[in-house]
């Protein structure tokens, strides 16, 4: 009963913040979708960090480290570099471009850059296809947490999260999603770090984390280096994992964050927070959990789903029950903070790029906002199918690999068009369309077609992003060079004006 009251209070805080956000919002599409472009440095940092730090950092990441050793951490090093690169290299230009031209979505910006409605549809569909299932992974994570703590079925926690998400996103819009991430992020870091310290103090009172590492060294030394206990992380895979992480700059729900910035100085200081708070602090916590503490406290787990739950299992075994409820709140916080931003991004793409971009070009502000809110409900319902699939035993439970094997390669397919559109004057519409289609179609076929040994033959049995992104990039460059260069007007609007604005804006 106390568990439910605590979770009720937690939910109430989020709902009240969403209601407050609705009250103070300007009721315009720009305000709902981009927080009126008024997000400052600190809010932006929590917004982005916890948009990317989903329940994956509690389940999938430590679970994979537990099973395969520390090699997977190179995904984090790549991601830190990728997020910093987005805000150092692409962010200022995208922000200025969107602000000058009142663009509400990055897909819209690229469609205008390449003067192509077809590209707008292709990019919108591609992004939605890969982001919606990822939204669905978040309620699934919470469902697992509920299941482990209370014994309630998976769908209870998933539905609870879905309802919370709908209320938060529909009422609050982007501004409140960003603000709520401060609250959610604080809860999550406290739960994750607090539980780590507490477990170490209880189980390894003499030497702390050193004692844990020495225990692994004595019993399972292969857990402390690459290629790991199962021999998975060869040098090639380690660097491949780093490259996959590096592609974090293409995650649409992170890219859109750059468009909400209040001013350009945000891009000057933002990477500092990413390096120090993200790279040298936050991600180290789940790393220590999965790579050192969990294998020392509870060795011998081989099942993927059990490994995904290893941190929660240890907390429930070692610490008092009330703290388990607090940790579950942390997991909900992580899941909601990520899924809310993904939902906002998806709903913006649906409303601005699909509905207004294709079907109702003359839709006004109120209509677009309404469509965005309606699409939130539709996307949440659709994303719950992930929980249904897993509940029925039809889907894979490995969260870590869903992120790195499906979502990231999918998001990466707009990378060449995005980077080229912002930085390369010679990039053309034909190049962007041909490249995005080639990469995406190859990726989908590659994931689906396997030989008798289960190898993805179209992907040469490499990581899905490697061949597809290579093809995508080559096609983009070659087709762009073979086709007529963009008009001078496009060059003026998307390069000269942006340069002037960035150099002159105070």
């Amino acid at each position: 009963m106390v568990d439910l009251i605590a979770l009720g209070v937690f939910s109430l805080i989020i709902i009240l913040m969403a209601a407050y956000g609705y009250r103070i919002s300007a009721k315009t599409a720009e305000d709902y979708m981009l927080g009126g472009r008024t997000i400052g440095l600190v809010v932006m940092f929590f917004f982005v960090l916890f948009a990317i730090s989903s329940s994956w950092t509690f389940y999938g990441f430590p679970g994979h480290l537990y099973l395969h050793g520390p090699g997977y951490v190179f995904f984090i090093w790549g991601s830190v570099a990728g997020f910093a690169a987005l805000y150092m290299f692409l962010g200022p230009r995208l922000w200025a471009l969107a602000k000058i031209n009142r663009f509400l979505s990055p897909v819209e910006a690229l469609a205008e850059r390449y003067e192509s409605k077809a590209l707008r549809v292709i990019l919108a569909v591609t992004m939605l296809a890969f982001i919606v299932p990822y939204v669905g992974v978040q309620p699934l994570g919470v469902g697992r947490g509920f299941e482990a703590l209370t014994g309630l079925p998976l769908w209870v926690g998933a539905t609870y999260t879905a309802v919370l998400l709908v209320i938060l996103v529909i009422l609050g819009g982007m501004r409140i999603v960003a603000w709520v991430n401060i609250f959610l992020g604080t809860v999550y870091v406290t739960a994750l770090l607090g539980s780590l310290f507490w477990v170490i103090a209880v189980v390894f009172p003499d030497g702390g984390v050193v004692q844990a590492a020495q225990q692994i060294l004595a019993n399972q030394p292969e857990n402390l280096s690459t290629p790991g206990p199962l021999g998975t992380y060869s040098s090639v895979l380690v660097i491949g994992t780093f490259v996959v992480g590096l592609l974090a700059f293409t995650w649409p729900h992170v890219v859109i964050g750059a468009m909400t910035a209040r001013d350009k100085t945000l891009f000057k200081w933002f990477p500092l927070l990413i390096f120090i708070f993200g790279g040298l602090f936050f991600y180290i916590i789940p790393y220590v959990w999965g790579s050192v503490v969990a294998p020392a406290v509870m060795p011998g787990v081989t099942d993927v789903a059990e490994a995904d739950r290893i941190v929660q299992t240890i907390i429930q075994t070692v610490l008092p029950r009330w703290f388990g409820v607090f940790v579950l709140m942390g997991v909900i916080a992580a899941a909601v903070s990520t899924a809310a931003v993904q939902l906002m991004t998806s709903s913006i793409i649906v409303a601005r790029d699909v509905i207004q971009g294709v079907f109702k070009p003359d839709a006004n502000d109120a209509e677009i906002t309404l469509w965005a809110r309606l699409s939130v409900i539709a996307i949440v319902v659709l994303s719950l199918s992930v929980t249904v699939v897993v509940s029925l035993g039809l889907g894979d439970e490995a969260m870590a690999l869903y992120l790195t094997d499906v979502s990231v390669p999918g998001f990466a397919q707009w990378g060449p068009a995005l980077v080229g559109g912002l930085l390369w004057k010679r990039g053309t519409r034909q190049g962007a369309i041909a490249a995005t289609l080639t990469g995406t179609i190859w990726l989908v076929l590659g994931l689906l077609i396997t030989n008798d040994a289960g190898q993805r033959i179209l992907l040469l049995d490499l990581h899905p992003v490697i061949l597809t992104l290579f093809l995508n990039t080559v096609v983009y460059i070659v087709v762009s060079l073979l086709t007529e260069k963009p008009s001078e007007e496009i060059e003026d609007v998307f390069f000269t004006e942006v340069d002037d604005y960035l150099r002159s804006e105070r």
Partner: protein
Amino acid sequence: MREMLEHTPGRIYLLVLLISIVLMAVLVFMGITDAPADGEPLLVFGWMEMPLVVGVVFVIVWLIAYLIYFIKYWPYR
């Protein structure tokens, strides 16, 4: 990034970032994150595995390069 390529500090900054990635890859291929063939995995401070150490050093290199470039040479003042 276009503006960084237009002046020398920007080009040096980008070069440092690129070299750090290449160096990290070289170290990984040389086996720095593996256990020695006839020994135990190396643990810094008794608990930090080499994949963690390599990554922390990598982030610190990016952090220092960023601080120098963005504080002294950032083109949008």
